[in-house]
């Protein structure tokens, strides 16, 4: 599969988002940063880093305590809109091991509401290696969905069908003599890396070597815009 062929398969999905083929599965990159697998009714979000604000506050930097509520509200919007059967958290759902204990009552409640009538799967990450204790759903290290293999941290070497998070991909896109930096999905047609979903999660430029180790040259960036995902080619990307 050449790069050009792969890009031909990129289309705007009728329910919003950018649809693309990853090995044999069609996935939709949503403007929210979530991944929608329409044929199986599965919604995936990576790197929510819930309670990042309170983690920093506990160490003396008083970041706003609104990040968890903000992240969950956006998630609830996606859940209400797409009504998935399964909701998969792709790891680093909490910023630290004690994050769950700091959750506010209202935030626990909105998670419970989202769990009603569907399966929640918490894939473990390096920030939350043991999964949640008191929240609905089950923990797992990886999850196989057809030809796709969902895991938090991408594994070195080409594994067709891997869907991962961990790296918080961001793209600096240049046009019109100026540039913007946005979160993005990045894929080479065989592997897909999701942007961080968390309100306060930072980003790493996809031109960084951390990505070139994992992806074939000149991957495609699906860049999050206002209510729309833009397919951006390698030629329009810049370093930070």
């Amino acid at each position, binding site marked *: 599969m050449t790069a050009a062929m792969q890009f031909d398969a990129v289309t705007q999905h009728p329910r919003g988002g950018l649809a693309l083929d990853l090995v044999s599965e069609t996935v939709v990159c949503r403007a929210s940063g979530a991944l929608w697998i329409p044929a199986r009714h599965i919604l995936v979000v990576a790197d929510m880093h819930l309670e990042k604000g309170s983690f920093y506050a506990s160490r003396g930097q008083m970041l*706003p*305590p609104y990040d968890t509520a903000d992240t969950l509200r956006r998630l609830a919007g996606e859940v209400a809109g797409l009504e998935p059967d399964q909701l998969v958290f792709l790891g680093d759902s909490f910023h630290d091991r004690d994050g769950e204990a700091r959750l506010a009552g209202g935030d626990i409640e909105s998670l419970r509401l989202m769990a009603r009538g569907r399966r929640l799967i918490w894939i473990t990450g390096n920030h939350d290696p043991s999964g949640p204790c008191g929240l609905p759903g089950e923990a797992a290290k990886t999850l196989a969905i057809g030809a796709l293999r969902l895991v938090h941290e991408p594994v070195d070497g080409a594994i067709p069908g891997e869907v991962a998070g961990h790296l918080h991909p961001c793209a600096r896109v240049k046009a019109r003599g100026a540039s913007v930096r946005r979160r993005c999905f990045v894929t080479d047609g065989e592997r897909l890396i999701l942007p961080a979903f968390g309100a306060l999660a930072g980003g790493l430029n996809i031109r960084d070597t951390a990505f070139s180790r994992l992806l074939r040259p000149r991957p495609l960036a699906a860049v999050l815009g206002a209510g729309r995902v833009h*397919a951006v*080619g390698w030629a329009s990307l810049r370093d930070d």
Partner: protein
Amino acid sequence: MVSAIWMPEPTTPLPEPFAGWFAARGWEPRAHQLEMIEKGRQGRHALLIAPTGGGKTLAGFLPSLIDLAERPPRNAAPGIHTLYISPLKALAVDVERNLMTPIAQMGLAIKAESRTGDTGVARRQRQRVKPPDILLTTPEQLALFCAWEGARRYFEDLKCLIIDEIHAIWPSKRGDLLALAMARLAVFAPDCRRIGLSATVDDPDLIRDWLSPAGKDAVDLVRGAPGAPPLVEVLLSEDRVPWAGHTAQHAMPEVYEAIRGARTALVFVNTRFQAEFAFQELWRLNEDSLPIALHHGSLSAEQRRKVEAAMTRGELRAVVCTSTLDLGVDWGDVDLVIQLASPKGASRMVQRIGRANHRLDEASRALFVPANRFEMLECQAAREAIAENAFDTELPRTGALDVLAQHIMGCACSEPFDLVALHDEIRGAGPYRNLTWEDFEAVVDFVATGGYALRVYDRFARIVRGQDGLWRARTAEMILRHRLNVGAIVSAAMLSVRISSGKRATPGRKIGEVEEGYLEVLDVGDTFIFAGSTWRLMGVTQMDVLVTPAPGEEAKMPSWGGSKFPLSTFLAQRVRAMMSDPDHWRALPGDVREWLEIQRDRSIIPGPDEMLLETFPRGQRHFLVCYPFEGRLAHTTLAMLLTRRLERAGVGPVGFVCNDYALAVWSMKTMEDLDFAALFDEDMLGDDLEAWMAESPMMKGAFKTCALISGLIEKRNTRDNKSARQVSFSTDLIFDVLRRHQSDHLLLRCARADAAQGLIDVARLGVLLARIRGRIRHARLDHLSPFSVSVILEIGRQKAPGEGAGEMILLDAADTLIAEAIA
């Protein structure tokens, strides 16, 4: 050295050994020096306003030197007697050196030492244990002192506080920080006198009020004799002045000749790109190989120090520089100041001209070199203002709350405080005199737990109220972290420019530093000028810009970015007045006069309070050009707001461009039949402004600065060395989250105030809209006018602006992908 004309009958003759020292050097004390001694004896606060070269610094120190020379021996080791604050590290060190001369020559037992960020650890520690009589330092070091446990005892003997170059410090956040430290010192040492040393300003009362613990009347004004008026010439180039542009390339041969004719010249420009360009041009002409150097804020500190040292040794014939050399140590050899491109303000110009010739009785020489015809008007207006000794006006300063947050944390690090007593103390600082209890409490709450409506951080508080009712820092680590982050200067993250070596393009020798974003307009493979040479951009890594030399290649000219300093209101008024008065045109050169005449014949010359608005078709587009003369910042804000309205009016605005004098908007449909009174109605400063500001990158930039100064985000961290680059991204996220959940948060208020004041000039826009109400003169034209050329030629040189641009960029990039895929 100076005549006695200005001298009143001295009430206090100069005591020995001072009188003898003056006499031995053939000097007579100046009137203002004696007057300052008298103020010292009376225990009065004083503001001394005197031109450069008037013995101002010595006048500031004389009362202290005399007091110290006359003090009786004491048993206990005395603390600091006089604290001297300078805005520049280099100046503190230079003044220390200059002070040692009279102290040594008079054989006085007085110890004077400087302390800056560069002072070694051993010396700093010794200074704490054995304080010198006179300590020379910077506002940041003083803030650090104030956050130290021993501060109260250390300063209890303080008799005198001297603020040098006070005109350059007071209307800024550094000034706020200094004012707060001064208020604290006044509590430690209630008898301490304050002395301000200032260049000539429009309204000394503003500085008196700022300096004083209790309003301007508590500070006496002392004026030095005026120096000889400067000789200012405007270059009437043999090549005609161009209609547009900023480079003044046409005049470079004449600038070079002026440098050749001078002993040493300072060539001031307004932007770093201009500095690089002028430097390159001058070296191209430099057949005599004159030692000409370059100095601007994007060069590495080491490089700048080298140039300054060469200047001190008198080895250079010229330095091309930006505002980095507006202030600084005295260079006796400078005899000519050249201002390349427009002066922007009269006060800054006087300051710059003062850098030439530090002898009071000789006139400083300056040459203005306008780059286009509007600038010719501006140069002439500045020249006339300087001749009349008229200056730009300033507004009273209201202290910033992010700086206050930093100060309050510092106070808690120093010793436990009582809330009411601290509020009283802070209101002793000029810019915080009107601080309300509500705002004060909000800032204390912010310092403690971030100031959130959602109260979940109480257990993590940085400062806590003890059972004794006093507030203190919660842990020793919080104190340590505060001290690492003191200061009100937030500099952009810097990247090293390194020569790329080998096939693998590894970073090699460092040639300088650039601010992040400085080279954003360039692509890999492009050539550009930096540090006086031409380079090819090879790539950018996390910390480095990799380049290879590209000598002799035509360098791509990056965006000029305009001047950092907007045209001052005062100068703009004078330009408008000059333009509207044909009798005044006689002072202008022939080609500029002719240009005004063509404008009058083809369009309109507006009256001094009118705003000219022209509409004309050009190419496939319709243009609207107006001439508010309020500076690029205010124009950009106005253009953003106008575009929103034009969008609603259905004329399909496509783009806009601004300079200091005018702005142009172009659209799909004609705009000539619009209701201009409604279009420029003042109500645009309401919802439209609010909506636009919230999204603007300026707000995000302002928020980042406030977050760093207030201590919400740490510049430097005890744990890991997180670089400023990473911080820059997360403050944008914090901004977004905060705006969605608590839009009245203290830091958003601070950011809004900063953006409105400094970055988008809302106040000035408000004054403009009020001024032109009912005074818009519309000229309906068939094609562009002479005036409009200057701004129309900017099209294509400026970046795609502001709101919505982000989405446009993404759409464009997506189109590129389609092209890529089809090809």
